[in-house]
């Protein structure tokens, strides 16, 4: 006993010694040249992700323009592109007190990250520069704002998210245009099923919730749920629009209109059948063109592909998800670095840059841009076509996870397959989804 204790004490003190040594060696690096260096975790080169690639090129242009004053240093980051692990990655960095000076988060992630108290609030910068603040599109900051008016992020895009469809498969099923109502879409789906085709490809996560938002948002009052009630309600089942949407979406799975591997949470399982022309429709944003459609698809698929808003519950009741996508956030508290960060986000939201981004990625500008300049920029027709249509649609609403609690993604992925396969009824599903999403957000 005695021996063991003494050994233990010796070992612990040895460990403490090691801790002391390591602590001493990591002093602050005092680089006192005039140039302020800020780290960026979403500015790396990427052959597969056009958003990252654009950020990288923009950061190079920034470094050139502000050489001597500010410089962006790229951090190679495995979770820079959107994906399930990105939030966890930054949460861990926040726990380790090691957030990058600049990086991008989407609105759902911002909700979770604001809990860490480590994000910079841009409100004062916007207040101080009225012209800059006024240049943003309406509601551009809606999803990026904290409970006390904090502005956690500067938006980089504002997009309409629709449904991609294979016009050749639709034609073969007897449709020469995209369905205008959900009933019509179901008729089309039944016909496609007859022909051994998958009507709509989903992933059990992001894309599935996109259709859920479409089914909710195209009902009267649906945008209210997606905007506020999704946070306030203690049981989403109290909203009849949500119940109807949920059951309709479930029934598509039960009827076999959806790919069999629609629960993995991996978007590639939704993309794959569309790209191999097994599935006729897949919901996704304009970036789908660059990331998938023009790189991996069957030959000629791009030409056959159309991009449509969501059908409505009644004729003329169509709608679309409008999102501001990822925004620039900062994890630094250093005054000089914050000056560099502010200069960078202003640079990124300048007219030249937002158009360069639109060309490179298909994403649409978060700021108002001169019409002639837009015309001259020659943007991706599929993406711009939809954003133009959006103005005439009856409904527009955010994605379910924009205002939804941060735990929604995890809870959805966990509960959705069980619900669709009949383990629980709609009441139970929605009640548990509400509870779990809220509790795992803490």
């Amino acid at each position, binding site marked *: 006993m005695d021996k063991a204790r003494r*050994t233990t004490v010796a070992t612990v003190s040895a460990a403490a010694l090691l801790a002391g040594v390591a602590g001493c060696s990591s002093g602050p690096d005092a680089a006192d040249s005039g140039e302020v260096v800020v780290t960026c975790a979403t500015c790396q080169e990427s052959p*597969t992700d056009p958003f990252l690639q654009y950020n990288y090129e923009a950061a190079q242009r920034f470094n050139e323009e502000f050489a001597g004053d500010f410089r962006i240093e790229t951090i190679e980051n495995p979770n820079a*592109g959107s994906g399930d692990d990105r939030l966890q990655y930054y949460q861990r960095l926040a726990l380790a007190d090691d957030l990058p000076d600049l990086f991008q988060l989407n609105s759902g992630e911002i909700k979770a990250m604001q809990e860490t108290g480590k994000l910079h609030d841009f409100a004062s910068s916007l207040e101080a520069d009225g012209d800059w603040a006024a240049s943003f599109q309406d509601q551009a900051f809606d999803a990026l704002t904290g409970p006390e008016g904090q502005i956690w992020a500067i938006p980089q895009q504002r997009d309409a998210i629709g449904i991609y469809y294979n016009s050749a498969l639709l034609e073969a099923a007897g449709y020469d245009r995209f369905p205008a109502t959900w009933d019509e879409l179901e008729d089309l789906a039944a016909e496609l099923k007859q022909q051994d085709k998958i009507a709509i490809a989903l992933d059990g996560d992001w894309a599935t919730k996109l259709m859920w938002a479409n089914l909710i948002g195209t009902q009267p009052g649906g945008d209210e749920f997606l905007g506020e009630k999704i946070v306030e309600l203690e049981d989403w089942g109290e909203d009849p629009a949500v119940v109807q949407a949920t059951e309709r979406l479930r029934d598509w799975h039960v009827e076999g209109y959806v790919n069999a591997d629609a629960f993995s949470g991996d978007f590639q399982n939704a993309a794959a059948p569309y790209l*191999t022309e097994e599935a006729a429709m897949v919901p996704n944003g304009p970036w789908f063109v660059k990331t998938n459609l023009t790189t991996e698809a069957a030959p000629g698929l791009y030409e056959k592909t159309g991009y449509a808003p969501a059908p409505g519950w009644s004729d003329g009741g169509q709608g679309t998800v409008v999102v501001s996508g990822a925004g620039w956030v900062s994890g630094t508290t250093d005054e000089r670095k914050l000056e560099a960060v502010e200069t960078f986000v202003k640079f990124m939201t300048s007219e030249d840059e937002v158009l360069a981004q639109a060309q490179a990625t298909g994403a649409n500008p978060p700021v108002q841009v001169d019409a002639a300049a837009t015309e001259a920029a020659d943007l991706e027709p599929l993406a711009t076509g939809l954003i133009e249509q959006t103005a005439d649609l009856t409904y527009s609403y955010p994605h379910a996870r924009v205002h939804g609690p941060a735990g929604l993604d995890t809870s959805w992925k966990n509960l959705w397959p069980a619900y669709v396969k009949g383990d629980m009824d709609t009441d139970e599903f929605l009640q548990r989804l509400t509870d779990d999403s809220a509790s795992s957000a803490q």
Partner: protein
Amino acid sequence: MSETGNTRIARRSVWANILIYGFLGIVVLLALAPTVWVMLSSFKTGNQIFSGNGFWPSPFTLQGFIDAFTQIHLHEYMLNTLIYAGLGTVGALGTAFLAAYPLARFSFRGRNALVALFSLALALPLVGLATPVFFVVRELGMFDSRLGMVIFYSALQFPFTFVVLRAFLVSTPPELEEAAMIDGAGYFTTLFRIVLPLTRPALATVAVVAFVNIWNEFFFANLLLVSEENRNVQLVLAGFKSQFGFNVTGAVAGATLVMLVPICLFLILQRQVIAGLTAGAVK
């Protein structure tokens, strides 16, 4: 293997043989079919993988293996993993050898407690310690650092390496060292000149096992590494499942290459691996 057991073969009937090979065949099929299928898929096009048509690659392509290096940059992660596994193994072997010798040879107060303590770590589910390990590593400034990871992996492999090396040293006769010490050789001279060469077979054994263990390690890498530039191959494999702009052929080919490293190592050094695992197991 010794010659025991051979007498048992003689009176096996045809039926017994059918039973034996049938049983073994089914087990091998169950154990290997998914893996072999995925390895074959690394020669398929993305289209064929996505559609799931056909067991054999058709058309046959090496594009996946090219993409694994040109697009996924697998070699960079393999280099990282090689650093972790290589240096981590050296660290574990070095510290364990230095600790195993005195604890095998000399009796002093606290020795048995220390041996029991080191061995106990081998019998605990270490994932239970995840959060404290993260905390300690962060406080030491070793979070997301290559050097930190090498040190951590040395520690992770230390108990196993220690237990096997000590068992081996206990079983070797001390006469040679005693003679050297009587001749006036110092402790470390004796340790490195006399004991080390004698221990080489056991060192080779634990080295292979430690290397493969670190090469395959996911849990702590996931906990303690975040930067792209520091990731090991297992994190890259896990990442294949959740990426948006996704090169499936490259990913499958990459996964195949990552698996082939320990497989080849095992096939070449089969003896050492089996001996090492068997020796570690009885502790």
